[in-house]
């Protein structure tokens, strides 16, 4: 059954969109990731114009993150103070990102910018994840548990503007979380992702936040950043397709539940290797498309030069 997407201005099979939503939803539930980094490239692969894919996916992520935030909040696992510092950077970053997006679109370079961002970040995150999960698997086989230091003092702790974050039991400079928020906001606007895949490792390794606070706090930041991106993309570029977002959402709601239940039963370490492989596969596919000679060197774009 075909449906005409009013903003994307093309017809797509409803069941394809629902299926994509469900598929990415299962992975989200299984691994606790938002799935934007998989959904946006998938949307582009099926022919949705990249600007519409990015903006509509941000809209869908609003829905995906809100139930997560509420669940973590009920458990008291959200550090609001840290969240607000991250968010102040995030709002600024996403405003800059939407502006940059508009500029690059005018120059005809937005498709390239989106692809390059994906290749770089999926490449880095995929490789790190692969290395980390393979190491964990090896450790599991050997049965040796390694203990790290409780607190490492690195250059980050020498930055000014120190703040106390009671919930995370941290006394650190506010500059670092602000910068992390800024980067994530920028990427959210350009790539149509929540940015959890960058923020979560950054919060653990750069800020030293306790793992119990990381998921809830990053979701809190993501909720507000993707909302900002949705609003700004709609206002500046008119590229948010609500019908597309709602269809993806309907699929992912079901998928996430299936994924969460599956995740409780399956060995997570082995599956992390699979997720890493998937991330690297998407990265390689995008890289391949960038370096191989296209079928037609020419492309059309509505508007004036």
């Amino acid at each position, binding site marked *: 059954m*075909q449906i005409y997407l009013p*903003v994307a201005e093309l*017809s797509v099979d409803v069941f394809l969109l629902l299926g994509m939503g469900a598929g990415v939803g299962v992975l989200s539930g299984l691994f606790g990731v938002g799935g934007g980094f998989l959904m946006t490239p998938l949307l582009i692969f099926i022919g949705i114009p990249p600007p519409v894919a990015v903006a509509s996916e941000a809209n869908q992520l609003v829905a995906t993150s*809100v139930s997560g935030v509420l669940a973590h909040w009920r458990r008291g696992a959200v550090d609001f103070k840290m969240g607000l510092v991250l968010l102040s950077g995030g709002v600024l970053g996403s405003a800059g990102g939407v502006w940059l997006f508009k500029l690059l679109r005018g120059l005809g370079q937005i498709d390239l910018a989106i692809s390059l961002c994906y290749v770089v970040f999926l490449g880095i995150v995929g490789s790190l994840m692969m290395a980390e999960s393979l190491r964990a698997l090896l450790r599991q086989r050997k049965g040796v548990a390694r203990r790290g230091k409780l607190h490492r003092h690195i250059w980050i702790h020498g930055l000014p503007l120190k703040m106390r974050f009671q919930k995370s039991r941290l006394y650190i400079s506010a500059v670092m979380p602000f910068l992390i928020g800024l980067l994530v906001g920028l990427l959210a606007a350009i790539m149509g992702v929540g940015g959890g895949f960058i923020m979560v490792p950054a919060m653990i390794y750069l800020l030293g936040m306790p793992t119990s606070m990381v998921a809830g706090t990053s979701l809190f930041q993501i909720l507000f950043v993707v909302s900002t991106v*949705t609003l700004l993309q709609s206002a500046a570029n008119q590229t948010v397709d609500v019908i597309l977002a709602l269809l993806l959402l309907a699929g992912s709601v079901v998928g996430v539940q299936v994924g969460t239940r599956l995740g409780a039963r399956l060995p997570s370490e082995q599956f992390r290797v699979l997720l890493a492989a998937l991330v690297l596969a998407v990265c390689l596919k995008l890289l391949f498309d*960038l370096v191989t000679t296209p079928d037609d*060197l020419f492309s*059309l774009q509505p508007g004036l030069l």
Partner: protein
Amino acid sequence: MRLLAAIVLLAAAAPASAAQFVVDVSERTVAITAGFTGAELVVFGTAAQAQGSVGEEHGVIVVIRGPEQPTVVRRKERQYGVWANHGGVTFPEAPAFVWVAASEAFADRPLAEVLARYRIGQDFLAPTPAGGDIGALDMFQAALVRRKQVNGLYSAEFGRVEFLGEHLFRTRVMFPANVPVGSYRIEVFELRDANVVNVTASALHVRKAGLEAAVFRFAHDFPILHGLVAIVLALMAGWLAGAVARRT
């Protein structure tokens, strides 16, 4: 039924040898609704000259085209190992959609050749550029037409105009699902030997209708409010999903 009746009426009205050149179309508007997968129209009419009564070069060409919109053609070049857009040409008035059909005498011949011979379609087969990389202009013009053909928006070869008897003709036009909204022109040319002997032009509109139209207008006319509504909808959907999940 209405169409059939119209064709029968036209046929009845046409005298045997010299008829009036009359053209009409089955619908004046194409409405894009939620389930839109394309639309079929029928253009029909009577030719003034009876088929077969004059030389071989006799027949009808139907051109449907519209809406003129500024289009940029960009060319990719390899830079640092990656293919990136580099340079482009703007065509301020390139039609978004062009469909061409011809009767038997022309239908099997190359489209560009026939149109050039009768001086039809210089504006869409070789649209005028505005500035840019003028040096390689032909290449950009050809690329515009080629990309449009690949997307199914320009005819690559003639559709068929069928004659039913000596004067009455008709042709089916398929508008694809990605047809752009706007005003279209239907032009019908009657040809004899090397000349265009009759021309008619009429208008056709493609527009979004129903929910699709409402959503599109809202997104473009009230972009900020639209963004807020999009957020609220997503918040409600997400909250609802979470609430249902907790219950089960």
